């Protein structure tokens, strides 16, 4: 069981408040500077302490016995200082903080189990801890020599991706009149090299549907289609430019493109893993991303905010709040909250941060070098620890409610600008006072329960154990757990209000650690095998000039400024490749997270560099880049199949046609809502998770305690017995996958509990970085379109809408196809629909139903068929 201490509010630099929400123990105790031990100290340890440890503790807490109960190992100095899942076993000089002390006194723990050490032994430990716990059992640090030499790294810089991109000259092409843009010239040159020709231009309807889906994730409506058709006929390029500018200015743009980023950021509103606990404030990051795309925030700045938004200078509180929210990027990862070993948990957290930032931004996997040198790229193990040292000196604030299963709760950050929506959740001073009282009372109960437990345990140890004694101990343990859990929830609640009863606005993110610690390489990535000290730094192969990191800073700001810039060869390339992929179906590098030697080479290296250099020149404007691709001739080529080209280039790497593709889950769902008229275009406040507050995810539901301010009465009685409940906190249950008319980007993203409408069409798995979604084709998708309540209901609404807009079935069919496919119906489609009308037998014929019911039933079934058709799901 986690033993949690509670702290209070504290101020940090620039006035940021860190509320110690469920303040877990900070795992990293400051290690005293190594010094020589005196011979008396060594003697004391060897004669009084070590023998007792061996005799009474090693059995369950040592490498030799292979046991580390509670995550604790006491056979090394580090093991004692790092401690187990409840915290440090020894804090030199501090008896109260040393868990080992309370354990051998049978206070919180009962160690050794079922036995008390002798009075003299206990006195020895007291003396030893008070003298600073001198411990000569220092594991000799290995000095791991990398097999990757500085020469290898220099040589590695010759690899295409590790060289700085330079502006290439435009290639010569024969069919020069075809190309509109530099992009086209690069594409055409490659085609001509292979004796291929680009496809003809696509028709207006296809181009508009592409633009509309690619830029805002929604289909055009019939009016837009008609207008575009006539303009495209006159001047295709002018027509496209106008539409592109309109689409880029719509707020739906950010909802579409922000979601691409959220795939990479493994955005989710819960921890996932065995104990899945919600992140009720994660949605603030989601909104931040969408807004950033909408205001065309320069990508270099956007990257800097992800990595070190908390440290960037801010000209206003609002800007600061924004960039603080951005650091949720580093806090959002899946968490194994059941992890027994605090050090292991922390190392995994850091590893995830190294992994996500390097793969998402740089397109290389630095985390591969955690246990040994990178097998394929010139990234020595020391580079990994240089980078992990940056995150090691960073504190990560992800919240999560304290429950008995949650061994690793953390606190959250308080936004400098309060969320106005929370004002209504203010509680009165009286209520605040009641909360305080309730907490004090519970804390008294806790102290009493602990006293009773101690007594019961002592009693049990002194005589032969009787059955009722052990039952008594069990009950007293349970009482402690209950009181502690209740106190925890109450304290958390209390800490979520300021002194006036106003709820704080929390956000997930990171902060600089208080004092910098040096980082050691870990042999084989194992926390108990430290190697040499590694200075904080950046992957060498990616640095033209070494980047200096100040000793007193974590280096995160330097990392952010280097990543979010053209000082490295990859950031711009990786992002232009991602944007190209979302527009064209495939990236120029088809392994978007791996630009290293095991990744694929770019199909058009010069084009990639052109785009990268241009991107930087244009001030890292994502909208400008999207616009440039959208108005190119290449983008508007037809998707028409060509046997000869296919034989030469089956994967369409040379772009002899526009790659036809299936729409993403969100685009499918959002289109259905738009076509039926049910789409609610405004942004909802928070999400189901945010509105439910802290809670546990179980089988498609969130079991939550009420969100801050929602609880009214303080009575703790009659509560259902459920872990995670605190006193005075109303539990509630919310279904995660519930109907909504909002755009899919606003549906809750709970790890391993994704809404069916998204799951069935390959929604990104939030447990990993997803740069490219899968595009499966399964009978389950068939079942979804044939039978799901959502599709059936929406089809009926679609039918009703068509009946209002047109009276004759034939007109309704034409209009339905126009809405769903963005073009006029073909003769074959019309005749198929007419045949359907003749053959479909409505239910309960001959009974009292009137003809309008029958017509609706038929048209609804037909509309469902139109939506279920392949044409709806594909972009041509």
């Amino acid at each position: 069981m986690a033993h949690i201490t509670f702290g209070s509010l504290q101020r940090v630099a620039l006035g940021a408040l860190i509320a110690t929400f469920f303040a877990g123990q900070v795992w990293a105790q400051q290690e005293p500077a190594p010094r020589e031990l005196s011979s008396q100290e060594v003697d004391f340890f060897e004669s009084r302490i070590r023998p007792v440890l061996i005799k009474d503790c090693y059995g369950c807490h040592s490498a030799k016995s292979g046991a580390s109960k509670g995550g604790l190992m006491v056979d090394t100095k580090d093991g004692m200082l790092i401690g187990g899942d409840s915290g440090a076993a020894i804090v030199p000089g501090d008896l109260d903080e040393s868990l080992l002390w309370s354990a051998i006194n049978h206070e919180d723990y009962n160690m050794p189990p079922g036995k008390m050490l002798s009075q003299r032994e206990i006195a020895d430990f007291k003396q030893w801890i008070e003298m600073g716990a001198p411990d000569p059992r220092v594991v000799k640090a290995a000095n791991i020599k990398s097999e990757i030499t500085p020469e290898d790294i220099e040589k590695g810089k010759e690899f295409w991706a590790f060289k700085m991109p330079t502006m290439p000259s435009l290639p010569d092409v024969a069919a020069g009149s075809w190309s509109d843009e530099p992009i086209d010239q690069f594409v055409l040159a490659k085609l001509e090299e292979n004796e291929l020709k680009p496809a003809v231009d696509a028709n207006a309807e296809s181009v508009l549907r592409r633009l509309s889906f690619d830029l805002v994730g929604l289909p055009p409506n019939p009016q837009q289609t008609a207008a575009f058709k006539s303009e495209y006929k006159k001047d295709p390029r002018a027509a496209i430019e106008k539409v592109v500018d309109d689409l880029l200015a719509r707020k739906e743009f950010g909802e579409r493109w922000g979601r691409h980023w959220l795939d990479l950021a493994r955005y989710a509103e819960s921890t996932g893993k065995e104990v899945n606990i919600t992140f009720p404030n994660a949605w603030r990051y989601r909104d931040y991303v969408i807004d950033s795309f909408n205001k065309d925030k320069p990508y270099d700045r956007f990257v800097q905010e992800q990595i070190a938004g908390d440290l960037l200078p801010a000209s206003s509180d609002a800007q600061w709040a924004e960039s603080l929210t951005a650091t949720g990027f580093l806090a959002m990862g899946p968490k194994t909250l059941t992890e027994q070993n605090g050090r292991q948990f922390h190392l995994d957290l850091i590893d995830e941060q190294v992994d996500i930032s390097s793969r998402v931004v740089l397109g290389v996997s630095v985390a591969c070098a955690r246990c040994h040198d990178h097998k394929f790229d010139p990234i020595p193990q020391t580079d990994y620890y240089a980078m992990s040292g940056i995150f090691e000196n960073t504190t990560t604030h992800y919240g999560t409610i304290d429950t008995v299963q949650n061994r690793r709760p953390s606190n959250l950050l308080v936004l400098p600008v309060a969320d106005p929506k929370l004002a209504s959740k203010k509680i009165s001073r009286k209520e605040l006072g009641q909360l305080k009282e309730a907490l004090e009372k519970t804390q008294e109960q806790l102290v009493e329960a602990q006293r009773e437990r101690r007594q019961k345990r002592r009693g049990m140890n002194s005589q032969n154990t009787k059955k009722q004694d052990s039952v008594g101990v069990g009950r007293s343990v349970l009482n402690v757990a209950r009181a502690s859990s209740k106190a925890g929830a109450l304290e958390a609640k209390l800490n979520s209000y300021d002194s006036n009863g106003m709820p704080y606005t929390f956000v997930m993110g990171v902060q600089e650690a208080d004092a910098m610690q040096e980082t050691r390489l870990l042999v084989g990535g194992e926390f108990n095998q430290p190697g040499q000290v590694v200075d904080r730094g950046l992957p060498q192969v990616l640095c033209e000039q070494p980047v200096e990191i100040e000793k007193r800073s974590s280096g995160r700001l330097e990392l952010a400024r280097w990543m979010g810039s053209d000082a490295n060869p990859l950031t711009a390339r990786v992002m232009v490749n991602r944007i190209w992929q979302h527009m064209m179906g495939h990236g120029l590098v088809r392994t978007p997270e791996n630009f290293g030697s095991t990744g694929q080479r770019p199909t058009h290296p010069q084009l990639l560099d052109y785009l990268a250099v241009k991107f930087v020149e244009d001030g890292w404007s994502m909208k400008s880049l999207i616009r440039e691709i959208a108005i190119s001739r290449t983008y508007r080529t037809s998707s028409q199949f060509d046997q000869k080209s296919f034989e030469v280039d089956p994967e369409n790497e040379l772009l002899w046609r526009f790659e036809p593709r299936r729409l993403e889950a969100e685009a499918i769902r959002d289109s259905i809502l738009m076509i039926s008229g049910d789409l609610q275009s405004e942004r909802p406040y928070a999400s189901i998770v945010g509105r439910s507050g802290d809670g546990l995810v179980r089988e498609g539901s969130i079991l939550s305690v009420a969100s801050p301010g929602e609880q009214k009465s303080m009575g703790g009685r009659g509560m259902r017995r459920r872990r995670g409940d605190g006193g005075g906190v109303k539990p509630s249950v919310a279904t995660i996958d519930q109907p909504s008319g909002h755009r899919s980007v606003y549906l809750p993203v709970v790890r391993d509990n994704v809404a069916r409408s998204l799951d069935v069409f390959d929604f990104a798995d939030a447990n990993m970085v997803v740069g490219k979604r899968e595009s499966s084709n399964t009978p389950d998708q068939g079942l979804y379109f044939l039978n799901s309540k959502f599709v059936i209901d929406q089809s009926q609404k679609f039918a009703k809408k068509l009946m209002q807009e047109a009276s004759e079935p034939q007109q309704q069919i034409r209009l339905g196809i126009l809405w769903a496919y963005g073009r006029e119906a073909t003769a074959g489609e019309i005749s198929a629909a007419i045949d359907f009308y003749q053959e479909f037998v409505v239910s309960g014929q001959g009974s009292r139903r009137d003809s309008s019911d029958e017509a609706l039933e038929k048209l609804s079934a037909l509309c469902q068929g139109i939506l279920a058709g392949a044409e709806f799901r594909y972009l041509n």
Partner: protein
Amino acid sequence: MNEQHHFRLPRRQMLKALSSGFGYLAFSSIAAAAAKDRDDSKSINPLAPKNPHFKARAKRVIFLCMRGGPSHLDTFDYKPELIKNHGKTGAFRGSLMKSPWEFRQRGESGLWISDLLPEIGSVADELCLLRGMNTDLPVHPRAITQMHTGNAQFVRPSLGAWTLYGLGTENESMPGFVSVSQPSGASQDIGTAFLPAIYGGTKLGGSGGRSARFRKSPSGTSVADIKNPNLSDQQQRTQLDFIQRLNEEKLRRDKEQPGVEGMIESYELAFRMQSAMPGLMDITDEDQATLDLYGINDNATSSFGRQCLMARRLSESGVRFVEINHTGWDTHFSMNTRFPQQCEQIDKPIAGLLKDLRQRGLLDDTLVVWAGEFGRTPYGQNGNGRDHNNKGYTTWMAGGGVKGGFSHGATDENGHEAVEGKCHIHDWHATILHLLGLDHTQLTYRYAGRDFRLTDVHGNVVKEILS
């Protein structure tokens, strides 16, 4: 692959084809066969049963996929020398660690099996251990992908997809390749790459959160959207005919569009699944003895027990290739507590599956395969864990065509590297295909001007294990 779809059959004939069993599939294949002479003109739909290359020893496969890399040293690879060498470092990165658990000889064959697997031990005489396994890389995603597709670098069809492509399936109302509790993000493991989409695996029982539902549901598992709440079968058929005409129109316009072809086939399969699936998933017709056999009423074994029972039911119904998944074998630390739990979860269910298949007479022509993506190191890690080891590990097979109570291949004295009877993943694939009556060098698919096969240019059948 590149049959042209510029054809138009009379509507009446088309509808007739649509409403008969294989619906559009039959229609499209008849038409394709008519349009173009095909080598394999006997087969009129891509999922119809096909004759193997030679007499098959197994008709179907149940693949028990152990994700994370289960330790061979604590399950099926007994290493007395490792006990003696315990604590030594030698050439290893860490010090050698003996198995904390006893091994003993089981069954008449006397195979050495860990005490953590007593139930599987009780059916030792069914097992054929492959103790000389090896694979290319000790990293999970790559090794898992290679185990499924033979190739970690490129996207290739999975073993199940190749099997279905080679043999078709015997139950036209069910997918021929089913993966139960497939983890999310692992679609490539059951994917078809360039093979037609209809040969891909269908996920059942969901992953992660949904596998919890799989465990909890009293009657097995529910399949989402398996029934239309409003339409009769006949109405739905009329609706589906309309959808398929739209799709066929699209296919004709687009010429080459594997995605749309796949969708047409998926819809027909989905339509048929509606009648077949609910009964198959409902395990209330199983008697108490059977549920007990699989450990379904026991907390520790309930989840995997249900999966094993589902595997039997699917196989029995004619599904060609069933994969079931068990995760959590990546034991870098705390093996002493976690590893026994892992073993307990699978022990009774797997033994129950083998016994049940035997008593139903199914084991003779069902190949059961147990494998993780790699094994673990003989040296310890984090006190009581083991690291990844691709150089030597154990998998086993049972049933159709393999020797029972048999062990083939060996690792070195400490269990680190395969030294005898080495079996690379390519050999393993070749052997599985061989047992199914397929010659791995002949089972090819032409794509973009090249013949592809599961084993690329590698693979030798492990003849020694054939019964």
